[in-house]
């Protein structure tokens, strides 16, 4: 490289940084920086009326799973917290599984449409994706509440004699999350299936593979990156869900997001809220890192 080329490369790098600076400043101030403050707050003591006392304390972190006995100051497992964590993980896993089970056939259906109508089907998946999450959650509320579409229909048909109480249960939160996050599963699956070479199916059938074998040994391995991407895209927001459990869980069927909210409101335990936030962030980051690792490995193998 000549001196002139070197100078040009340095200039290019400088311009690259210079042009990115305004975005980086905004993101540092209003996205990344505040996370550092959360980290500091998680090691402080709670203030009596919310906020914090500026003294070092590990109670915030301890409070995630343990609770202090009010009589003898010993620590025991906090059952309520364990229930909330378990509900969050269980509902997020179930949501991921259900969205995959129905999302895969849907993505396959869209990808196998003729080119002209494919764009339309894809558009139909995209509309709910961009529609306000609150509106979609409320739409589910319209269907499952006691006087809602589902109960009215079942009552009229005589299937049930009294409305089923679905709203404000775990099931309601589960149905709601599967509904609002489904497009996040279908879109990456579609992208993977769209690249899939259908000639492979002919080859497999020519070699006397059954439909089940074709699905399990040909299709699924090849679209695996799409499956992993979709699962991460559904699992991550499910785990951090706040609006859906609040509206459909009615404040009782809390998930981690609502539990964090509680600490900054009635709970008046900001350090615990900060520690819970960081815990959620760590779990989500771990899931994303696993995804990146898998995605890189798959591209390394040339899929």
């Amino acid at each position, binding site marked *: 490289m000549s001196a002139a080329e070197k100078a040009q490369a340095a200039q*290019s790098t400088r311009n690259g940084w210079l*042009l990115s600076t305004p975005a980086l400043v905004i993101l540092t101030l209003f996205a990344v920086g505040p996370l550092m403050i959360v980290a500091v707050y998680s090691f402080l003591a709670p203030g009596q009326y919310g906020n914090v006392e500026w003294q070092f304390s590990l109670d915030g972190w301890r409070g995630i799973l343990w609770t202090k006995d009010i009589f003898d100051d010993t620590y025991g497992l906090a059952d309520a917290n364990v229930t909330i964590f378990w509900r969050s993980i269980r509902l997020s896993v179930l949501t991921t599984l259900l969205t995959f089970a*129905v999302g895969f056939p849907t993505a396959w259906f869209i990808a196998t449409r003729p080119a002209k109508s494919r764009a339309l089907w894809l558009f139909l998946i995209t*509309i709910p994706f961009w529609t306000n999450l609150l*509106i979609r959650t409320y739409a589910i509320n319209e269907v499952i509440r006691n006087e809602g579409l589902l109960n009215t229909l079942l009552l009229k048909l005589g299937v049930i004699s009294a409305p089923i109480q679905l709203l404000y249960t775990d099931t309601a939160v589960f149905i709601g999350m599967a509904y609002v996050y489904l497009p996040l599963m279908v879109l990456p699956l579609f992208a993977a299936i769209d690249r899939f070479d259908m000639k492979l199916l002919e080859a497999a059938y020519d070699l006397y593979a059954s439909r089940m074998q074709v699905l399990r040994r040909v299709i699924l391995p090849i679209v695996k990156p799409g499956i992993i991407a979709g699962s991460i895209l559904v699992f991550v927001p499910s785990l951090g869900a706040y609006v859906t459990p609040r509206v459909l869980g009615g404040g009782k069927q809390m998930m981690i997001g609502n539990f964090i909210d509680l600490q900054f409101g009635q709970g008046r335990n900001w350090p615990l809220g900060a520690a819970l936030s960081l815990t959620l962030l760590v779990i989500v980051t771990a899931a994303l890192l696993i995804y990146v690792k898998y995605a890189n490995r798959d591209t390394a193998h040339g899929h």
Partner: protein
Amino acid sequence: MATKTFSVAKLPGFTTTAVLVFIALYLPIFTLVAYSFNASQSVAVWGGFSLDWYAKAWNNDQVKDATMRSLIIAVSAAVMSTAVATMAALGTTRRKAFKGQTFIYVMINQPLMVPEIVTAVSLLIFFGMIKQATGIQGIGYVIFAHAAFCIPFAYLPIRARLEGMDLTLETAAADLYASPWQIFRHVTLPLLLPGVIAGAMLAFVISLDDVVITEFVKSGGQDTLPTYMLGQMRRQLTPEINAISSMLLALTVVLLTAFFLLTRKND
């Protein structure tokens, strides 16, 4: 040939499942819209067709205020995030990979990776400190919070557009003694414009839709349309919520259709 591939690609039960999924996806939305035309006071009983709830929502001062505030925030956040995202996209594409580029990517995509509730709580604490120290209240906090999480949404379509753009036109302009600014103003920017508009529209929709971060960052009396609706959902529900939702839904569909036409035409 095409029909043969199609039959091979058919898997048992897949079409049925897909059709049911589309029904399940749209039935709740149609129900919500249908009940916005309900004449009855309750959301439960159908009392005939009426536009009363639209009139009521239209004349509700709280709804009017919240709508205005939502639009002001969304426009400000979209303009701000699109401006800085355009610059960042120009800085991170069409040049040799440079040191720190990955860092810039990670920073720009950060809002996509952090759960909303975590960002919401962190901003609650951070802005709380600023408010206490300076005493400054106002809508600015919400705008800056929105501008930050809108950046990746504005950035992605602009970057995609830049990567697909032909460099030779700019080289030709340079050969004809255009100054770097003239090249940018008369060649790069017009070519880039569909990407910029697409990015701004995504940022606008994302800002308009936000509930969680706004709910934590706003001060009293700073409700946006979504946080107003969230507040109403705790009380007795009336079809007014359905009417507001339907209007917001219509706006989203219009914007999305425009977005698709915009990005498709220039492929």
